[in-house]
């Protein structure tokens, strides 16, 4: 039996804009996981990531009339997420983000076997720590550039800079992450 393809995000968002708010539920189901994952890595704080995810969907509802016919839903969503995250950072303490790797991995780890190697766990913890040592802007551009559903042109649009500038910033952030990560690997365990 032939089944019809699910409507694309853009079509659903246009329906939301036209008043069919139930379509926002479907968009939530499709996107809240990756969005939350991005925000959890960006903030290093699960609770904040959950709050910001909710605020992003609230804003999509509130500002649905501003969604454009030719727009990309994902780029628009991450654009709003960037604004919401900035608000969060402005409100919260300027102190460095405290990353607790065990907190970030808590749910995902449940699906893995108990015999998962400790080395891999350590590796994840090191990388979380390395991410936590990046500047917020570096972390932002790096995480955005790793989202497969966004092109570099869209990342540049979200960051409000040229594509070339976005590439350079992403590359610098990646090098910075690598340096922190490799340095941490060489540090003795505390």
């Amino acid at each position, binding site marked *: 039996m032939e089944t019809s393809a699910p409507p694309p995000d853009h079509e659903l968002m246009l329906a939301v804009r036209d008043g069919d708010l139930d379509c926002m*539920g479907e968009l939530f189901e499709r996107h809240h996981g990756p969005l939350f994952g991005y925000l959890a890595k960006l903030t290093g704080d699960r609770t904040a990531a959950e709050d910001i*995810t909710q605020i992003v969907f609230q804003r999509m509802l509130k500002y649905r009339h501003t969604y454009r016919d030719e727009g990309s839903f994902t780029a628009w969503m991450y654009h709003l997420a960037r604004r919401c995250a900035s608000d969060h950072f402005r409100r919260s303490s300027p102190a460095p983000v405290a990353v607790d790797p065990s907190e970030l991995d808590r749910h995902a780890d449940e699906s893995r076997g108990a015999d998962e190697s400790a080395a891999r766990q350590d590796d994840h913890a090191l990388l979380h720590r390395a991410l936590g040592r990046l500047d917020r802007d570096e972390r932002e551009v790096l995480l955005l550039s790793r989202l497969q559903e966004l092109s570099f042109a869209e990342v540049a649009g979200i960051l409000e800079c040229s594509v070339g500038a976005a590439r350079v910033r992403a*590359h610098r952030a990646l090098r910075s992450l690598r340096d922190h990560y490799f340095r941490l690997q060489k540090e003795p365990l505390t």
Partner: protein
Amino acid sequence: MNCQSCTERMAELSDARLDETTAASMREHLDGCPDCRREYDSLRRTLEALDSLPAASPSHRLRARVAGDIETEKLTLRRHAGWASSIRAAAGTRPDRGFRWAPTILQALAACALIALGFAAGERTATQRQLVDLRARVDTMGQLFEQSVLQKRATGDRLETILTAATARKPDERVIDGLINSMAFDTSVNVRLNALNALYQHADQDVVRAAVLACLPREANPLVQVAMIDFLVAARHRDAAPELRKLISDDKADADVRESARRAIEQL
């Protein structure tokens, strides 16, 4: 291709996002430039590690919260539409009064059933006097009237009442009873969810925990059920375990609800 332009696009090469011409040109450069090759290998390893980080998952409560937001926005939309249509239909016919009262009477009967359930579920822990008082109030015509008035008001107004009650500094028993009633009977998912949220600050009261537990099996909406389970976990209500086990073994229950119940059992 020179070293600088090669370096800037290494991340894209590693995850195959480059067009084939640029990728081929980069590979050719990497083959002939040991420095860029070393740089590329180390960045690729970092990216592989970054991409292999397990994805964090949000709690079930996020879904309930966003669903509540969507419901609230829908109500706002309907209220705005209602202004226009009410003006146009100013001389329209009145709905049949008997039909409008039927849900109220059903709700009153359901109220009595809820209190009976509340007794059954919470008799070991709930304060006997509070439950007796609560039942007495529900049984009175005054409570019937209150229920009917509450249900005749627009959903947005009922929501406002809940939000006001939630911010009350010293809520009395009547306010808490009102919140319990709204959580149990209101026809709007959003109002029920907000009433439940407002009850969090009273989770230390036996009657509140017993009421949430009593409402759990009769609640039709999975979002509200998940929120109720979260409440019972937050309140450390160990008496909820038998009801949660029933939900877990109920094949007809929503998958998310059963999963929440399973997690709750572990936490309790």
